């Protein structure tokens, strides 16, 4: 049985949130995974810069963010927001629920147009992360994460008021 080092197991545990963050940045699942892979390689290279016991999620996400901007500089991030690219819930519109699906697509568009930090916070909130987890992943304070989330949800409500 393979024995994982503390660094390796922490890194593996941080991958799901890194993928989520990368998706919020790239707005494209395929590019997001490319970015995460690049980031993992960079993280392994810089293992000596990471202090065990500190927040590896925030550290990895910082690398993800830098990798995203590097990729963006090379103009290789495409923004292909198709229904298929929006996750399992968006794959096949079910008759009767079509209107709802269209609305969700619009919400997704709305989120994609948000500034980076708001997009990241809301994407993590969507996936059920707690305020503290969002804050930790993004290197924010819990209060700061709450303020950003609150502001974004108000914007969202203005765009999609209750019918």
């Amino acid at each position, binding site marked *: 049985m393979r024995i994982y080092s503390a660094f*390796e197991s922490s890194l593996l545990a941080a991958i799901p*949130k890194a993928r*989520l963050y990368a998706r919020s940045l790239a707005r494209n699942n395929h590019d997001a995974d490319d970015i995460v892979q690049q980031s*993992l390689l960079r993280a392994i290279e810089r293992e000596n810069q990471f202090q065990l016991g500190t927040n590896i999620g925030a550290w990895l996400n910082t690398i993800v963010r830098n990798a995203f901007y590097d990729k963006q500089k090379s103009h290789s991030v495409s923004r292909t927001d198709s229904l298929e690219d929006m996750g*399992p819930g968006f794959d096949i519109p079910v008759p009767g629920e079509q209107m709802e699906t269209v609305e969700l697509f619009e919400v997704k568009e709305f989120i994609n147009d948000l500034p980076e930090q708001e997009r990241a916070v809301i994407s993590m909130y969507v996936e*059920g992360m707690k*305020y503290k987890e969002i804050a930790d992943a993004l290197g924010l304070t819990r209060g700061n994460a709450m303020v950003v989330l609150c502001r974004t949800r*108000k914007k969202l409500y203005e765009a999609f008021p209750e019918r």
Partner: protein
Amino acid sequence: MKDKNKKSENFNSSIPDEISNEFLMAYVDGELKDLNVIKIIERSPDLKEKMAPFVWTRQLLASLKTGILDKPSPESMIDMVREGIAAQERGHSLIHDLEIMATVDGEAGFGGEEVSFSENQGEATKIFSRTGALLRRMRTGVLQEPVPENMLRLVEEGLKKKEIQAAQSPAFEIQKPVTRFFGRIVSWWASLGPAYSLVAVAATTILAVGLYVTASDQVPPTWEERFANFEGGQQFVTETESWLSNDDGTFTNFTLPALSQAKLLMGDVHQISLPSAPITDSLSISELEGVLDRMIEGKNNRALLNLSGDSSVDGSSGGQINRIFLRAFTPVDADIPEIMYEKIQPRCIIGELVEGETANPEVVLKSQKFRFCPAATNNRFTLLRALEGN
């Protein structure tokens, strides 16, 4: 604030009797406005010297400047203030909104404590309930998805590759086994519980003390031991005649300090009394080294290499004399046979220890060539062996 103003007023007041440190500091910081005081300071070398600590600390602190005062405030903070003010104007407070959002989401409040807010029916509640429901429907479940196989492989292979690369680096060759060894010892100790750890520490200490005692028990070799190579060995033919006598056939007696200051020239013969018994008795190597140290004391490398004169140490006892003839050679002009046996290093002396008769010093009973390297850490004194078949 008032105090500060008061202080700056003081700086600009009429000329004080004595220029205080505060004035000097203000001058260095460019905050001193009083031209008369400035003139006094600039004309006085003493005051300029006195202000040196302020100049130094000013430079030191300037290097720590972050420039935060010149940077724009973060956008998020500006937004927060604006929203807070706007919300306040609308009769809402941002904290109030945050508390409601937390309540709707089933989380602790803004301060991290449970929300005791009961008014959850207002507009804010509607906003957060609606957006919460909308956003929950968009969940993709990415966090619950297993990590893709390619990413797992990438991490595993990346770390393995890095380990191999590190193992091939020269630093790793030394560090890894050493750190691994000590790491194992420490983890072994840690794994034993406190009582066993204590026993392990005690055992290691006893072992270390034992090793130290054994090592310190090693007595340096006696002269006889060192001289064993000579006993029964090859007799050397030496040029003792020219070394031992002055032109008038007398010997000059020198004390050790006098010898160390003596000008040693070729042809001079120096003798001193050896405090010890003949060489066959108990002259220890360390005693001999001490004599040699004193003889060459204060002579630099150049002087030592030019020390081509001879000196002798003469100790009379029981009809025998011990003489140490010191001759220094540069490797270039070293043409005596013993140079062939060992590579002569700079700052080393080739000497000869001769045992002869008191009545007839020219008769050499025993002779042994040696090399003495005062700057060496090990084997400062070495006997030179006779050439095979010589």
